[in-house]
């Protein structure tokens, strides 16, 4: 079980959440419909092997969206916060 630290509810098993996906994708509000930014936003992914910023919806809890930094190779959770929060890599991870 992945344990995600929901800012409201506290640490919860991931079965309470719905995975939304890559949290680095910023909706290009206002960009023309022809702007390639839209394609990038909807379809392209960095898909890193390692730390990954992602969104989880606490659908069986407070129904808030939680931003999580998680290592996709080890499943280690390195930080969590609200969607607008900046979540930095722990120092130990940066050095790895």
């Amino acid at each position, binding site marked *: *079980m*992945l*344990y995600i630290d929901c800012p409201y509810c506290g640490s919860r*098993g991931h079965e309470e959440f*719905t995975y*939304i996906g890559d949290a680095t994708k910023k*909706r290009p*509000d*206002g*960009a*023309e*419909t*022809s*702007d390639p930014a*839209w*394609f990038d*936003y*909807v*379809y392209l992914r960095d898909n890193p092997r390692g730390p990954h910023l992602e*969104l989880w*919806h606490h*659908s069986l809890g407070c*129904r*808030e*969206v939680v931003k999580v930094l998680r290592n996709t190779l*080890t*499943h*280690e*959770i390195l930080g969590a916060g609200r*969607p*607008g929060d900046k979540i930095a890599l722990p120092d130990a991870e940066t050095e790895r």
Partner: protein
Amino acid sequence: MIRGKEQQPFRISSGGEIERTQPLGFRFDGKNYIGYQGDTLASALLANGVRLVGRSFKYHRPRGIYSAGPEEPNALVHLRSGGRQEPNTRATQIELFAGLEAKSQNRWPNLKLDLMGVNDLASRFLVAGFYYKTFMGLPGWHFYEHFIRKAAGMGAAEHIPDPDSYDKMHGHADIVVIGAGPAGLAAALQAGETGARVFLIDENDRPGGRLRAEQESIDGRPAMDWANETVAALQDMENVTLLTRTTAFGYYDGDTIGAVERVSDHLLAPAPYKVRQRRWLIHAKRVLLATGATERPLVFDGNDRPGVMLAGAARAYATRFAVQAGKSAVIFANSDDGYRTALDLAYAGIDVRGVIDPRTGGQGELKDRVAARGIDIVEGAAVVRTHGYLGLAGVDIADLETLRSGRMPETRFIPCDLLATGGGWSPNVHLHSHQSGRPVFDPAIAAFVPGASRMNDRSIGAARGRFSLAECLADGIAAGRETAQGLGFPVGSSPATPATDEPATGSFMTLWQVPALPGRKARSFVDLQDDVAASDVKLAESEGYVSVEHLKRYTTLGMGTDQGKTSNINGHGILAEARGMDIAAVGTTTFRPPYTPVAIGAFAGRERGRHAHPVRRTPMHDWHLANGAKMIEAGLWMRPQYYLQPGETPSRAAMDEAIIRETLAVRNAAGISDVSTLGKIDIQGADAAEFLNRVYINGWKTLAIGKARYGVMLREDGIALDDGTTSRIGENHYYMTTTTAEAGPVMQHLEVLLQVHWPDLDVKVASVTDEWAAMAIAGPNSRAILSALFPNTDFSNDAFPFMGVRETDLGGIPARIFRISFSGELAYEIAVPADYGTAAWERCIEAGAGHGLLPYGMEALGILRIEKGHVTVSEIDGRHTAGDLGFGGMMSTKKRFVGDAMAAREGMADPSRPALVGLTPLDGKTRIRAGSVLVADPKTPPPVPKLGHVSSSAYLSPNLGRPISLGMLKGGRERIGETVWAVFPLRNEAVECRVTAPVVYDEEGARLHG
């Protein structure tokens, strides 16, 4: 009650953990026996002198009991019968109970005369991977496979329902200690004393681990006294949970331990209301792995005969179960365990005829004790051959050095019925390696020990290669204290390590295999269950299958139900020798969960049968059932499909009649349907209109209070997501409805947009699906019915026009009325608080009695909406754009909305895309099935170009008197009036049909606005 002869000729008259006052009758292969409480099936069989218990997987060689624990490769039996049968159950782990029944497996017609034993004679052909090299010709693999499958497999299972139930349980612990041997007990005691929440898990019926099987002492007393006292102390601690008969089978992310507690497996049947097994999911902050070690066999010619057994198991049978595993024993081991075994077996009254020690020198104190008892010790020697077929009759021994030089050694025959062999111990690193842990090879013990781990685990005692009792106790104490301290629990001063009395032991000698006698085709088994011999390992190596993973897959080494617990390292050692490499460089395969196999039922717990998944009920559920409704599931909800009237019996004809009756009622009089399952979302906030404007393709800024509007929303990728009406019920207050299927996804879509992308918008959304019971009353008489129900409301067209919304009350019940229609008739939807749903529904039924009102179900609803060309999930199916569905004109060009950019892509805006059309059979009567594909010519040979498909179909529109359908047709809007074929090759059907507009009934909408 099974009765048998009370003989037990191999039972020792005293000692052991068995309860001699509790004899238990059991049956094996149709014969009755008696064992004792405290026995396993294996120990009870041995006590009764039963040595042959099974046949091997491939060669059907006779096999006996090989171990005393979960590593057992041979003694797999078919336990119990009927619904409780369990194939492939290890006799060494079955606790004996009165009435136990077991059968041997993988033999025909019986265990002693297994005709499949012919495979053994053909063994030179059936080497590793032989099937990859043949069976390629006609009649094809599927033919040969039929026979191979019958020969393969182990136990047989039948399709009979399991009468037992299962549970799941969650646990939370500061420290989980796995294994209640000396290290685990010591650690749990130390940790428990600090107040930390501790789980101590052990797979056996009682704690003690290896102490139960050995003659050890602690503080001058039998070691089990210490263990029992420690257990008593732990049981007094409220913060400690002791789970016995519980196997920790897997180590998962987040330091989660999966474990299965065998609550009732030691009983004939579970007690009333008790489960058979309980699956635990325990979340730990720290995990102490005190999982012990597994002894591995020595590999030599004929090492698989019944009577060859692991030395530690022979000791366990003697000490724990008071059973002689044989009457006359030879011992063959590459460490001082050989001497330890000799002493324990001799003490148990077994005639020990020799200790064969491949080492020359370097032994410790134990050897002297053995020599002092006058037992023959042969150094520098090995067992080179065994005799006997259904049971061991004796062994040949020879000088190892001569054998290694390739010369023919002199052999000596020693008659015996038990050969206890020990090839060293391998730490049980399984759980450690389930996560990222990478075991490392320790040459001192010729085994893999835990390496670095990213998880919060620590291995202690034998699980990290510390095999002496003193080391285990010290390791446990230190780990228990340090781990608790690390979590912030206060620890007192360090206790003294209990004193042990262990003789000094000699060195260990690595011996992966005993070379075969020159000229002899040796049958030296590495993996006993899957019949992988040393020669198979070498063959695989010579063919280039040199990776340990290739070796495993090519030879099936370690693929059996024991997952290679006794065989993997020997196999890898032999591979390393063949490759001329160090075993550390050859590596090891990854251990996969579960540690031992787990019943599938335990993973499901109570979520089976009709509780396999939740179902949702509407407030009027019971009314529907009481009034003849046939219910079907729609997106977890149970909904009426149609209603049978009193006196009608269920049949296809009655169903058709009901559907026609209900459809006609709506068109000609009135109908009422339960629409509570539609998603309902309460939207409030100053920016609510702006929000709706962004999520729907059409405009929302001009909607007046008291009015509803139909809207369509897209996914970000430009595909239609959902449709529904949204009503404005206050200045900044809206009430959105969604389809039943998409209620959840739409709610989440809105929440993510608001929380992640548009946090600046002042909008709050709340799901009110469950708050409101909703019923649609449709039909020309609906106005009259509504007027009767709501005498104070003016339902005239002017006062309450189409798309009007009113908040009022229904005789004391708060109600919202929406003049919206899915059927195309004059219709109203009434929403009331859910607990009043049935009351309101009944009032509607009562008010409609004089107006021909009938309840209608999903089938009639389907016909009505197809007549009107209204789309549902069959059309909004995740593959179509708003344009495809005929909503292109609704897409606003004056504002931006979700999905607009991606919907503008070349392939999404292509005018030749499929578009929604109506389809009607040219002959006016042939049914067009949903799922038909639209083609230009039904006679074209494959591949046939496809023009679209039929999405929804009614075999008869009672209002039009003919079948009708909706479909998606390429360039469909331009093809209205043309003909096209709807083909259904699965049933050899082809119907020529005319393409029409989607709406085929009341095209002008006069009835709707009437």
